[in-house]
């Protein structure tokens, strides 16, 4: 009996030790969002929503490789193991789906679920149509015309026209569980509190505006991405100083986007600042309407040569990558442009003089800027820096400052709209994750505002041909080559005032280990542990 008790005690101790060894702690994250992102599938709150509530709880057919900090993220198989376009009919795509995948509620994942999820955002007559998710997802898959489940693990998607960017579009679409939606009385409001995806994390607790608690999904299909933490807690902390104080006082272990002026104090206290290049830029999108001074390539090049980007770094606590092009220098699509974007005041002045400007003949331009905004970094001091730089080459900049929400409206309206009041540029930061968002949407003749986001009304036959070639090049490597060629034209024609790139800074307590910051808007949280 005594021996039995001792055995039980030993087992209990062993079990405790084993669980202690496996327990990897709780990570509390202070987000910049004011609320928990939409939990039902398609997230809101922009990149942060997808980062924390999208690719954690859900999967898409095609995903981003988030395992490396040293190279740009590329597409990898997700819930689809392979995909291909029909050689005869380039509008027909076949996706082979991964077998053996289950949702958090235990339901199996099949092609019927993909059809159901696409209906959820595209088919207003479907029972599961959700306006909130549709608002987030519909505009991300403009190529999709129809879709059909061929069998349990084969899906066919037909596009409106040949479009080789479809795989990138499909990364946006996240798969919710139909069975769970039915179990929740087919009510998305109820699903929000208890959602079910196939992702590596399960949503355990969700309190609006307060917190979301995610726990590992032990049956996740990719063993290498089963989270090591016991729990990840998401806390909305929209005010930068409140976020910093929460980290410094130990109430959270990780914050997104620390204010640059708090970083030295954090580093001094042993906190780790993680950052990396990613597909983001900070530009002036130039008006190309008739009469705009930015139509002169010499002026555009001069402006790009007049800015000492390295000199801007202290303003941002060093957290920036000086622009060498529209895309970050580390991008797989950067190419080899001939125009070297650098600081060369003499060359800039020579170009301005060649264009007819000088000390006695200044160029007057009006520029739209905002005092703050998502991804805008520190827009006021940065724009003042640009203003002073351009003044050195006789470009006098008059600012029109508008609040961020209104700025978005003016950006959507385009340079020709009366509401922009004659502004010749708009300071906007761009999400450059894929061919469409990275290059096509800004300069496509068919997307001139208000039909799209070509704010400056640029339209060029050669560029249009390149865009068409991107959409019609179905071999990924060949498509990358066309993307590089397109970006070279962006730079060589100095189509934007290209200033800097953000590096997605985040600050974390020294006990947070194992995080690898991918060159992407999204991140992998599965490798993280807490060292107590």
């Amino acid at each position, binding site marked *: 009996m005594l021996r039995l008790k001792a055995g039980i005690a030993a087992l209990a101790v062993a079990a405790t030790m084993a669980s202690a060894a496996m327990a990897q702690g709780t990570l*509390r994250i202070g987000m910049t969002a*004011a*609320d928990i992102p939409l939990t039902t599938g398609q997230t*809101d709150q*922009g990149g942060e929503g997808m980062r924390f509530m999208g690719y954690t709880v859900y999967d898409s057919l095609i995903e981003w490789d988030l395992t490396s900090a040293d190279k740009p993220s590329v597409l990898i198989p997700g819930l689809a193991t392979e995909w291909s376009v029909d050689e005869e009919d380039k509008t027909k795509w076949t996706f082979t789906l991964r077998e053996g995948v289950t949702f958090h509620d235990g339901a199996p994942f099949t092609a019927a679920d993909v059809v159901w999820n696409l209906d959820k955002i595209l088919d207003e007559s479907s029972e599961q149509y959700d*306006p*909130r998710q549709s*608002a*987030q997802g*519909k*505009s*991300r898959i*403009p190529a999709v015309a129809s879709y059909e489940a061929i069998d349990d693990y084969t899906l066919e998607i037909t596009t409106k026209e040949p479009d080789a960017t479809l795989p990138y579009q499909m990364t946006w679409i996240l798969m919710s569980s139909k069975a769970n939606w039915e179990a929740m009385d087919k009510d998305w*409001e109820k699903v929000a509190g208890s959602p079910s995806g196939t992702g590596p994390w399960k949503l355990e607790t969700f*309190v*609006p*505006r*307060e*917190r979301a608690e995610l726990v590992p999904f032990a049956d996740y299909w990719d063993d290498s991405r089963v989270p090591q933490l016991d729990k990840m*807690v998401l*806390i*909305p*902390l*929209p*005010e930068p*100083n*409140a976020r910093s*104080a*929460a980290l*410094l*006082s*130990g*109430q959270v272990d990780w914050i997104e986007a620390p204010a640059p002026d708090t970083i030295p104090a954090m580093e001094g206290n042993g906190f780790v600042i993680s950052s990396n290049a990613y597909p983001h830029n900070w530009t002036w999108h130039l008006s190309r309407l008739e009469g705009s001074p930015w139509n002169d390539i010499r002026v555009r090049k001069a402006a790009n040569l007049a800015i000492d980007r390295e000199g801007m770094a202290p303003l941002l606590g060093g957290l920036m990558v000086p622009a060498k092009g529209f895309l970050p220098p580390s991008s797989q699509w950067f190419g080899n442009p001939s125009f070297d974007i650098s600081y060369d005041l003499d060359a800039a002045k020579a170009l301005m003089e060649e264009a007819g400007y000088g000390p006695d003949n200044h160029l007057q331009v009006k520029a739209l800027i905002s005092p703050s905004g998502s991804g805008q970094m520190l827009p006021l001091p940065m724009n003042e820096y640009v203003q002073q730089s351009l003044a050195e080459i006789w470009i006098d900049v008059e600012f029109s400052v*508008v*609040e*961020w*929400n*209104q700025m*978005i*409206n003016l*950006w*959507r309206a385009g340079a020709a709209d009366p509401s922009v009041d004659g502004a010749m540029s708009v300071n906007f930061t761009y999400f450059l994750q894929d061919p469409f*968002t990275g290059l096509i*949407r800004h300069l496509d003749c068919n997307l001139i505002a*208000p*039909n*799209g*986001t070509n704010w400056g009304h640029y339209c060029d036959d050669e560029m249009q041909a390149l865009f068409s070639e991107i959409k019609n090049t179905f071999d990924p490597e060949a498509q990358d080559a066309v993307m590089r060629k397109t970006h070279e034209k962006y730079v060589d024609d100095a189509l934007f005032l290209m200033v800097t790139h953000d590096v997605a800074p985040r600050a974390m307590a020294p006990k947070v280990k194992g995080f690898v910051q991918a060159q992407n808007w999204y991140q992998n949280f599965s490798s993280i542990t807490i060292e107590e």
Partner: protein
Amino acid sequence: MLSYFLRRLILVLPVAFGVSVICFLLVQIAPGDPLTAIMPIDATAEEQAAMRAAYGLDKPLPIQYAIWVGNLMQGDMGKSIATGRPVADEVFGAVQNSLLLAVSAAVIAFPIGIFLGFLAGYFRDTLLDRAVTAVSITGVSVPNYWLGIVLVIIFSVNLGWLPSMGAGPGGSQSWSWDWLHIRHLILPAVTLAVVPIGIVARTVRALAGDILTQDFVQALYAKGMSRGDVLRHVARNAAATALSVMGLQLGYLLGGSILIETVFNWPGSGFLLSNAIFQRDLPLLQGTILILALFFVAMNLIVDVAQAAIDPRIKRT
């Protein structure tokens, strides 16, 4: 007293109507698009138009107002555009948190303000009076959000004694009366109390100083009344005006703490309001402003009635 109360209550109705019109129109005047919060910024014009129609934002303003008021009459404040949750749930939850913070700040501020003001008024033109005046002016002048940041740096970051954010552990917003939650209340309540301490102290000082010089006070002393009894009379005379100032301050504390709630990530109506403004969340914005404005109207009504109860002369004017 009852007829006075009813008269004042009837006067509230046009004020409430005016408040509803103003808060509906105010948020319409601001530039920006409420759909920005719920759509990718590069959504097509067609998709934006469809969503605008779905939310009824394509209708003329008078129609939108009529629908809004009609729904309000049925207790429906609509749904937040940004979150899809009922505005009533969002607003009343936040107002409860703000009320908790405001009352806590008032509990700190009013006794201290009254005590300091009375002290300064009684010992007028002495060093003590000047010291209290200096404290009051400092309290009113120091930007309270700055003070909040300083207190966070000292007590949260450097000393680690008190938390810097939220209404409970781990960002919790649901309140319960235990130390884990109360410690979250201390810094924001103290920060918020600083301005009303100054205002109440200045008011009470002026009132007490003025009343103490009046003839009836000399008469009371002449009748042999003790100092304590005389001060009770002085307090009774000062109470109506002091009460009105404190009532207004409570209104300001509830609606005017946007910066404090932002600094401390306190999930109250000010914090909700600032988020609603940045997101152009019209239903939430309208609902929050309306509730705060009506609270202010209600506070005024309560103060008026309380003043009349304390000082019968008010009913006759």
